[in-house]
């Protein structure tokens, strides 16, 4: 194994299909029109010296090192900014060029520290490389002149020198090493789209400046790392590299945070991670990253990680550390005991959307075949189960329709109930890039999110009241139908015409018009009409949506309404369009594909189908139960009733993430055996009897499937710190329960998945190694996978229009609870925060805050930063207020990243009619000033402390 070196072509790839042929250093080269001479030369294997050029950003032409000579042209043009032309004859090396380049380097080095041996970039510095490439041997100007290098010169304070900025927890900015190539500034603009950096001053005074000469941490910088990646010197360097040194080998793997599924190179020294660098060939992220994947991996060796299995009889006992065998047999005896006492269906389990496909598959297999029932569910229940239902009803399959590359062909993007800038940052950057090229954006969200307004982005914002999605989307359909904007040719060809007519008549009713529904939704009818017209007529229209759509009592109905909209306008079945659920966790798509839902086997086939069951029964050698099992909320209800008494939870924290915490506490407390399999003693573990330590994504092999259905490898870069990869733990538990599963490597599990699942038959580790990734479905019909779905026709045959009547949620505001609470995430934290709270990311977000409009705050006497009590029909908690007009009057907002806030004490039991996905996004609340934590928070904290005790090991005999 060695370090994976990616070729830097200097300038971005041209997408032109017209080819141009020229001669470079005597070799004929054919490249797409629009390619730079620099890139064409690199294609031919000739590396022209360069400093300010890198292929992640557009050419800039400032360093003048990449000059070339072109026959018949005067002067020495920069090869980065000169496009190829047919018949050009280019020379990249001549006496004149050598002299020019040496002169340039001499000037650079005369104002650069010569501490190469102790420099953090030693061994990975392009300035050093270029000095070598041009044969620099002498700097005639000396180092005594005006400079940015020394704090003092000639005994005086050097005003041009600036100290290091170490404010960012993950990288340093050392201005003395800066060559002002502006690669960082351009990366921040072109790749990330934040525009946090600029070059201040002119000429010799030019400096890289975060914001208005602020610190990196104090500026708008979002710490995505693109500038650090772009920097050719040690000016911007990862602190981990400064501390450890340069990596010696690297392995390509997939990020374990959000559903974007960025590919990274884990750059290693032995079994120590030096840094994670986004992989240019990663087709989801195309070389970009966010603060979480790039930097927030420190949780993997956090001191709170539990590495030994633990058991206890009662949850108020301290934990006892035991051997794996002892933990397995203890757990197995408990679970089998429950089945003997309460029946075969009295236990179940939850698969993890953070674990690999292979691990998820094994957990559902253990439950269906080993436990002998179908009580298996996954956290997708509480996020995207309505997507599964809504899209399979209308299109015939539950998956998102596009790949992320599709956004490059989008003309109108509609974002509903999602905030990709926070929750799917790399996708947001790719979208913003397209918006800066002129595509339009419509945001339907109660809150003015970062997507609504950001540098060079101004969306048409429809700020609806939480809970009125169906009314708004149906009103959009009303405008499209009544104003004659339907793509009739598409609908006639691809959809069931009779169903369409019925739907069109339904939405055309006056009661669905924007004017009639404005009183419910709060959306300006003029804006809504404008949005409908832009989406229907603005070219390729793509809808991206998130949990603001699904987590409602009408979540499935909204998904159906969105699908109707895309079909009516013909925005399905080609690049640039589609209906795209943004999945929360890394492997939500995969955990659904793997049969994690109680009613269906892998590949979305209903458990009642005899033929499907026969196939699994034959291979697994057991009889399967044909009835659907319990969904997560049903499990809790059944636990309280006394018919569901044992659960195996892999890699989820249901106590913190599920709604109505008191109800979940009651359910977990009622169970006789709770097995938690996780990295940390999470909140659920406070109610557990068995703790099985988990392994991080760096410690195991497997695959994740991201939001665009892309199956990518997760590769082991270090031994599991707990001694076993998660798939091995599940096998151990199964064996103790008398159910043998024999695999020696996750690739064998994938082979079994491929053998049993028609949409996976083409997937194997060999193919993933060869192609890098494939998009589901991947089978004989699509051997290299399916980037865009429903081309030429829908999976179900004809697209199905279904009427979507708006039904107000029963969670209503009233005199006691006059405000609506909605919840979401921020960039630096992830989900329940179990991972990111254990990294330096806490500098950006140390606690959950309650956003409240100034008007509502004033009425209640609440000032910015005050503690407030937040009360709903379900419970109460306290947190600090942030006064902002990002939320409308009547709406408040908070995140759920911190267990001490307990946002889910507030949320209620209401759920989606079709899937029981909880209604997180609408809770009627009241707010009042407070002095500090509520009684519930105090008693919860006390219970948690008590429950986390680990008994000291007994002295060896």
């Amino acid at each position, binding site marked *: 194994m060695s370090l994976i070196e990616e070729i830097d072509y200097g300038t971005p790839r041209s997408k032109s299909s017209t080819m141009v042929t020229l001669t470079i250093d005597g070799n004929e080269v054919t490249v797409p029109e629009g390619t730079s001479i620099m890139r064409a030369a690199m294609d031919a294997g000739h590396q022209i010296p360069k400093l300010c050029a890198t292929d992640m950003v557009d050419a800039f032409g400032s360093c003048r090192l990449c000059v070339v000579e072109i026959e018949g042209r005067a002067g020495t043009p920069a090869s980065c900014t000169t496009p190829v032309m047919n018949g050009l004859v280019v020379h990249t090396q001549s006496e004149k060029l050598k002299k020019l380049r040496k002169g340039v380097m001499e000037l650079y080095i005369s104002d650069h520290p010569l501490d190469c041996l102790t420099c953090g970039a030693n061994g990975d510095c392009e300035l050093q490389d270029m000095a070598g490439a041009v044969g620099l041997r002498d700097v005639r100007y000396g180092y005594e002149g005006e400079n940015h290098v020394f704090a003092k010169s000639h005994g005086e304070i050097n005003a041009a020198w600036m100290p290091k900025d170490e404010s960012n927890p993950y990288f340093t900015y050392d201005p003395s090493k800066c060559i002002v190539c502006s690669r960082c500034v351009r990366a921040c603009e072109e790749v990330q789209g934040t525009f946090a950096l600029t070059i201040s001053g002119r000429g010799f005074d030019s400096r890289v400046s975060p914001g208005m000469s602020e610190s990196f941490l104090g500026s708008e910088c979002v710490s995505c790392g693109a500038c650090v990646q772009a920097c050719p010197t040690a000016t911007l360097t990862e602190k981990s590299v400064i501390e450890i040194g340069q990596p010696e080998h690297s392995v390509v793997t997939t990020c374990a945070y959000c559903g974007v599924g960025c590919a990274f190179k884990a750059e290693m020294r032995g079994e120590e991670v030096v840094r994670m660098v986004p992989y240019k060939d990663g087709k989801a992220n195309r070389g970009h990253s966010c603060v979480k994947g790039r930097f927030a991996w420190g949780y993997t060796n956090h001191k709170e990680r539990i590495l030994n299995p633990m058991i206890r009889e009662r949850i108020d006992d301290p934990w006892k550390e035991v051997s794996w065998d002892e933990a397995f047999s203890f757990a197995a005896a408990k679970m089998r005991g429950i089945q003997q006492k309460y029946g075969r269906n009295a236990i179940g389990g939850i698969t993890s959307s953070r674990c690999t496909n292979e691990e998820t598959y094994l957990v559902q297999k253990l439950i269906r075949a080993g436990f002998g029932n*179908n009580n298996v569910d996954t956290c997708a229940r509480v996020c995207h189960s309505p997507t599964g239902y809504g899209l399979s009803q209308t299109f015939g399959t539950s998956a998102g329709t596009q790949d992320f590359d599709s956004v490059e062909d989008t003309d109108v993007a509609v974002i509903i109930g999602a905030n990709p800038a926070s929750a799917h940052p790399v996708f947001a950057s790719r979208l913003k890039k397209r918006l800066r090229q002129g595509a339009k954006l419509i945001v339907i969200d109660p809150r003015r999110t970062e997507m609504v307004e950001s540098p060079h982005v101004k969306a048409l914002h429809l700020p609806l009241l939480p809970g009125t999605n169906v009314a708004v989307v149906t009103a959009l359909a009303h405008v499209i139908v009544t104003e004659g904007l339907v793509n009739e040719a598409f609908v006639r060809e691809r959809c069931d015409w009779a169903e369409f007519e019925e739907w069109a008549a339904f939405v055309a009713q006056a009661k669905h018009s924007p004017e009639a529904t404005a009183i419910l939704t709060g959306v300006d009818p003029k804006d809504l009409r404008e949005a409908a017209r832009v989406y229907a007529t603005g070219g390729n229209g793509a809808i991206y949506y998130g949990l603001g759509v699904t987590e409602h009592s009408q979540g499935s109905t909204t998904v159906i309404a969105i699908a109707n909209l895309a079909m009516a306008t013909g925005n399905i079945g080609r690049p640039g369009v589609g209906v795209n659920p943004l999945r929360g966790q890394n492997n939500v798509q995969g955990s659904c594909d793997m049969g994690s839902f109680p009613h269906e086997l892998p590949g979305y086939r209903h458990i009642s189908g005899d033929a499907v069951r026969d196939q699994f029964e034959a291979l697994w050698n057991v009889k399967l139960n044909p009835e659907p099992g319990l969904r997560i909320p*049903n499990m809790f209800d059944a636990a309280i009733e006394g018919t569901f008494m044992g659960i195996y939870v892999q890699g989820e924290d249901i106590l913190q993430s599920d709604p109505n915490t008191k109800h979940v506490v009651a359910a977990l407390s009622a169970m006789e055996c709770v097995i938690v399999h996780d990295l940390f003693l999470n909140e659920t573990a406070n109610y557990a009897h068995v703790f099985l330590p988990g392994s991080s994504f760096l410690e195991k092999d497997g695959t994740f499937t991201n939001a665009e259905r892309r199956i990518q490898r997760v590769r082991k870069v270090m031994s599991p710190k707990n001694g076993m990869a998660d798939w091995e733990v599940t096998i151990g538990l199964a064996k103790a329960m008398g159910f043998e599963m024999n695999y020696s490597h996750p690739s064998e599990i994938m082979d079994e998945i491929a053998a049993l699942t028609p949409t996976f038959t083409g997937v194997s580790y060999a193919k993933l190694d060869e192609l890098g990734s494939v998009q589901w479905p991947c089978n004989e019909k699509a051997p290299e996978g399916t980037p865009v779905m429903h081309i030429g026709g829908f999976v179900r045959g004809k697209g199905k229009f279904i009427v979507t*009547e708006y039904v107000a949620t029963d969670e209503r505001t009233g005199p006691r609870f006059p405000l609506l609470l909605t919840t979401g995430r921020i960039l630096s934290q992830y989900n329940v925060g179990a991972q990111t709270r254990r990294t330096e990311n806490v500098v950006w977000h140390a606690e959950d805050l309650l956003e409240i409009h100034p008007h509502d705050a004033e009425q209640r006497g609440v000032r910015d930063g005050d503690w407030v009590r937040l009360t709903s029909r379900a419970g109460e908690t306290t947190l600090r207020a942030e006064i902002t007009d990002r939320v409308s009057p009547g709406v408040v907002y908070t995140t759920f990243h911190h267990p001490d806030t307990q946002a889910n004490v507030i949320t209620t039991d209401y759920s989606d*009619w079709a899937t029981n996905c909880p209604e997180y996004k609408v809770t009627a609340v009241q707010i009042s000033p407070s002095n500090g934590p509520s009684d519930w928070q105090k008693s919860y904290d006390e219970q948690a402390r008590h429950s986390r005790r680990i008994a000291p090991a007994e002295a060896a005999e």
Partner: protein
Amino acid sequence: MSSPADRLVYMANQIGMFFKSQGHDKAVPGIADHIKKFWDPRMKRAIFAHLDAGGAGLEPNVLEALTSLKQTASLPEAH
């Protein structure tokens, strides 16, 4: 929400509400199919027991759907 039966009645009526706008003839089989496909046997048994006890609180379409489903369903025993 209070008793387990109340909760199931609420869930069933929620399903009924979605199908209501499709008209009685589509709604009744739609509701029955949805409950058949997605409810665990103990939930089905409980709602059928509630139905036998008069089905208080169930919307008419839902009541009809559950009555027809109960005739065709053959649920395994609890153990």
